[in-house]
């Protein structure tokens, strides 16, 4: 996984609440057995005027001129500014894969759905939860200033604004450490292999029916 310590980038808006993972990446693209290549289909139904198909070359598809990510001013954006409950619905990890593949390293919103929030950290995408009033202020600044950029510092857990203000955001220590160092968290868990074995031995004694060889005849 790509590490992320400090990220500075152009901000783009996704100005609606309850953006679900079906909207982030529609189901027809979930048929892929790969982990990459979802970027061209990020927000497919909003971004294009036609119905997208897996494996299609998206470069000649009709773009929706009203969708902000298609505006020239937001090209190259790497920070997505969003509204509450971003990423609700399906657990599909294809959602952060699509965001990451498109070039987003950070999503800022007042709140996130639990599964999506967790999935982001596994893929080098940092979800930053800020109070709604601060997000409102960022939207205003973004709309008022073409080329609006922001810095997100995971190490300090702060968003740095152009005017020098710093807003802190919460991240739990485990997720923070994994993302800061780009850790393989399976490798981290396997270091606790002895504890897992010990737990299993206890479990086998206490609830033997959970092991198929001992479920009774």
């Amino acid at each position, binding site marked *: 996984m790509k590490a992320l310590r400090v990220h500075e980038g152009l901000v783009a808006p996704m100005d*609606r*609440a*309850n953006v*679900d993972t*079906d*909207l982030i990446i*529609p*189901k*027809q693209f*979930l*048929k892929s*057995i790969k*982990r990459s290549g979802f970027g061209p289909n990020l927000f497919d*139904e909003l971004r294009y005027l036609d*119905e997208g198909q897996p*494996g299609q070359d998206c470069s000649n598809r009709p773009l929706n001129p009203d969708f902000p990510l298609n505006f020239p001013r937001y090209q190259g954006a790497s920070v997505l500014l969003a*509204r*509450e*409950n971003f990423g*609700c*619905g*399906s*657990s*599909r*990890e294809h959602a*952060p894969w699509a965001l990451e593949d498109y070039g987003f390293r950070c999503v800022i919103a007042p*709140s996130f*759905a*639990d*599964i999506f929030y*967790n*999935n982001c950290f*596994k*893929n080098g995408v940092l979800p930053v939860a800020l109070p709604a009033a601060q997000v409102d202020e960022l939207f205003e600044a973004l709309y008022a200033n073409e080329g609006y950029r922001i810095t997100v510092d995971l190490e300090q857990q702060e968003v740095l604004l152009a005017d020098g203000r710093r807003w802190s955001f919460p991240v*739990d*220590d*485990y997720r923070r450490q994994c993302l800061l160092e780009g850790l393989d*968290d*399976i490798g*981290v*868990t396997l270091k*606790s*292999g002895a*504890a*897992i074995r010990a*737990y*299993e031995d206890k*479990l086998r004694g*206490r*609830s*033997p*029916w*959970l*092991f*198929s*060889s*001992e*479920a*009774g*005849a």
Partner: protein
Amino acid sequence: MPGKTLYDKLWEAHLVEEREDGSALIYIDRHLIHEVTSPQAFEGLRLAGRTPWRLDANLAVPDHNVPTGSAERAGGVAGIIDSTSRLQVQTLDDNCEQFGIEEIPINDRRQGIVHVVGPEMGATLPGMTVVCGDSHTSTHGALGALAHGIGTSEVEHVLATQCLVQQKMKNLRMRVDGRLALGVTAKDLALAIIGEIGTAGGTGFAIEFAGEAVEALSMEGRMTLCNMSIEAGARMGMIAVDDVTIDYVRGRPMAPKGDQWELAVAAWGDLHSDADAVFDHEVCIDAASVAPQVTWGTSPEMVAAVTDLIPDPAAMSNTGQREAAVRALSYMGLSGGAPITSIPADRVFIGSCTNSRIEDLREAAAIVRGRKKADSVKQAMVVPGSGEVKAQAEAEGLDRIFLDAGLEWREPGCSMCLAMNADKLGKGEHCASTSNRNFEGRQGFGGRTHLVSPGMAAAAAIAGHFVDVRDFQGEPS
């Protein structure tokens, strides 16, 4: 010290290790696998040279992509017409074979939607931790299990370590007092709850459903209710174990037998919240006030009683809500202030992990028995949740009732709930659907989904528009 909630007990029983950073290693008893969210996880194992930690905790079944038309289905994996779907199902077969994981293949009689198959097979048991790369894994909480959806990275994590790194959720009790009225089901209750607390109301919480109306539900109803927890923002919903649970589990193929059964039942007796347990938050709902529900928008929280009018955005004081409602009504092609019953049903879908179990099919069959689908309804499909459900329904003659009424009787799978196979809505079509999500495009590009109970979907198939199922009780005139 205060008592423990059901979630507290399940959490503590599966705690392998607590870490200084506040995270915990939680042991996973059952890992369910399907074809959509697992290929990249198996590939990850291969790339890292890892093998599954414990084979017998895993059970796989293809469900999202499988065709539900009998002709296409008869060809098995090789017969799937869509080549990308075929490759995904084939990849699951190949991965299960390579890694030695038990799989119920496409045309096995036991095949079905993973959340129907798990409990039905006894692969899900009370007291277990159950995960699957699918957000509707919350369904299994109905059996007094700690069950939630995970992403593909965590599918790989569970395969490799049999554990997940977790942070403990907060406890929310959803107490439903009184009894649901005749014609009002667990689906209506779930939708009414989401309407009440919103799609983010349960974020950060493990929900325990409790109270008289919940206790009175069958296992099928409880699964419907827990299934929709995720639509209220909660990764997991659960219900205490009681005699209904034990009676449901007894005799299931993978349930413990003999002495093991007695041991297990004794242990499961503690799977309820203590009387003095403290919840971080509690919501109370009056069951008697719940009417049959219909969603009118593009989020499950955009829901109303069938007797209501579609809300008028102009009357909404909250700007964000008003804008969302305007956008949703525009997408849905509806106007605020019109009666819910004026919405046409171009197609009807009875199925999905929410509502495809035998009781759901009985409920729908009771409505269409002796009646005919309206001509204006282009298609009404009934998709049983599993081969076992299908066989049971056919043994009861439900298939004949559906077919005689002009509905289609199909092979098991996820089908039009998310339209990954050929079952989908056309642009602009309204669907009376027993599924769980009415998001834009969910059931097909430009499709318009209205979430309802099986009885309400069946009634819409007959009437050609949304209608109060309570007007359909009794024999047709």
